[in-house]
């Protein structure tokens, strides 16, 4: 690995811990960020010659803290900047301080620091997209340009969005005291929801957007693994990580060469990422030993049943139906019931599934997938007219070109078959 690669990976991996510690120290997001940037610049200057410090995170925290303090002094009374020699001396003295800090970093304090850093990004006044943008900027350290590209907006628009979000956070009360166990659990839930939002921003994109947005999935996984190391015995964190791994593993098979959606049952399972599936399965196995089921674990268990099926026809739909029923009890929602209906159609046939989703119509009338499924079930029952009507409704509600194109395929097939049949009749 060349120097810049090593330094890059070290800076990226150190960022959440270092930023979290600096936020606690300065109690201000902007100051913490400036201090961290400054520490990174100094790292880029000093590490290539001297080699990496023994503990990069501790080094960055100490250098960042000093630089932030200096910046504060500079602002208050124009003191001269410390010269480079002073900095070198400081770096020499860092070694001992680094060791002491590195030991403390392993303690429980820094766990609350990182959780706080993630938690401030989830300020309830912030809309979901701003939460995600803020977390990617502050915690993951993605550049504004990278985030803008992932959200398919201009750089200046994204810059504004992040600035607004930061201002909102600065106005609110960031909780700096150590959380009670209940508060900690609540924060963790909020943060997990945010991480899953980041993932879905990347995962739900189709077509040409999918490639640009893939880094979001990657970042969400990194954040989730970070949470898992902070809370290594939390079954729901295992569940969330497993869920994302098992879903993300299918990414290479979810689109064909033309960018069209390939449904789960039609996917080439050989394209699934075997290592990600293995990691996801290991985590869900581990989580279930705790016997404290939660929504992420149940969803991961469903994804695991797909992951374990070598062929689509090996899928244990009865068990999936059972798990969706559990999920309905935990988090009742028409969308969960709609997903369950897919399993019901496999176990009890399309008519049973149609009966099940009929009462959802009122609440899901504006939902693409509701009409898509309604169309597919009617198609299976040979009710072409009802299927066509449902697909037309779905197309009108499609969230992107890929979704629309997928439904269009069904309609085209119906059209072609209709013409063939008419032809057959006239010939007869």
């Amino acid at each position, binding site marked *: 690995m060349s120097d810049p690669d090593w330094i890059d990976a*070290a800076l990226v*991996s150190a960022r959440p811990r270092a930023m979290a510690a600096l936020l606690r120290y300065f109690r201000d997001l902007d100051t913490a960020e400036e201090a961290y940037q400054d520490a990174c610049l100094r790292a880029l200057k000093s590490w290539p010659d001297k080699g990496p410090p023994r*503990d990069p995170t501790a080094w960055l925290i100490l250098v960042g803290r000093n630089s932030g303090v200096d910046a504060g002094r500079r602002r208050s009374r124009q003191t001269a900047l410390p010269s480079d020699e002073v900095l070198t001396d400081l770096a020499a003295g860092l070694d001992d301080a680094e060791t002491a800090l*590195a030991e403390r970093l392993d303690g429980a304090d820094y766990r609350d620091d990182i959780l706080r850093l993630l938690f401030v990004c989830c300020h309830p006044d912030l809309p979901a997209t701003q939460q995600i943008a803020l977390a990617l900027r502050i915690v993951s350290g993605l550049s504004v340009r990278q985030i803008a590209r992932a959200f398919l907006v201009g750089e200046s628009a994204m810059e504004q969005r992040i600035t607004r979000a930061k201002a909102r956070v600065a106005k609110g009360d960031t909780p700096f005291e150590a959380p009670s166990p209940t508060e900690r659990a609540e924060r963790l839930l909020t943060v997990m929801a945010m991480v899953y939002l980041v993932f879905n921003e990347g995962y739900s994109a189709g077509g040409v957007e999918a490639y640009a947005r893939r880094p979001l999935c990657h970042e969400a996984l990194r954040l989730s693994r970070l949470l*898992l190391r902070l809370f290594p015995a939390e079954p729901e964190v295992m569940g969330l990580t497993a869920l994302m791994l098992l879903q993300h593993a299918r990414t290479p098979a979810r689109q064909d060469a033309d960018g069209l959606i390939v449904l789960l049952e039609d996917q080439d399972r050989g394209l699934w990422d075997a290592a990600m599936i*293995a990691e996801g399965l290991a985590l869900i196995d581990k989580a279930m030993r705790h016997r404290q089921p939660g929504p992420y674990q149940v969803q991961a268990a469903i994804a695991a049943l797909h992951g374990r099926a070598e062929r689509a026809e090996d899928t244990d739909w009865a068990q999936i139906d059972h798990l969706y029923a559990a999920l309905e009890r935990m988090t009742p929602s028409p969308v969960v019931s709609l997903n369950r209906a897919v399993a019901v159609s496999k176990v009890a046939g399309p008519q049973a599934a149609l009966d099940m989703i009929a009462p959802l119509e009122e609440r899901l009338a504006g939902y693409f997938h509701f009409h898509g499924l309604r169309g597919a079930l009617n198609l299976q029952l040979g009710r072409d007219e009802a299927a066509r009507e449902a697909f037309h409704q779905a197309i009108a509600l499609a969230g992107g070109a890929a979704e629309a194109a997928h439904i269009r395929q069904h309609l085209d097939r119906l059209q072609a078959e209709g013409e063939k049949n008419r032809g057959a009749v006239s010939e007869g």
Partner: protein
Amino acid sequence: MLYAILCYHMEDVVGAWSPAHDEAVMARLAAVRDDLAGQGRLSLSARLLPTTTAVTLRKDREPPLLVDGPFAETKEQLLGFYLVDCTDLAEAAAAARELAAANPGGCYEIRPVATSWKSSAVHGARP
């Protein structure tokens, strides 16, 4: 004799590699592995899943207890291993150096193997 080359590195850092970088490192390691295998010296090698997937069976009580972990926050974690046939330490160190050139960072622990038992079939970790 057989030497185990145990790969330790900071999991956080390896996890921060971009997919492209990860692939490039794995390709370079594959070349070294192929070379060792070509000489008939590579007995087994494996990359382990992250420590977050691990559980530990504590045998200090009866019945033994299966717990999450390891929790011990060591700086570097065991991320993989190689079993290589080498005549002496110098040869084992040379093999480790080749691996290190392909994948710098972290460290390799070189441990001579006392006894090894080969099973008739070796299975991959196909889920």
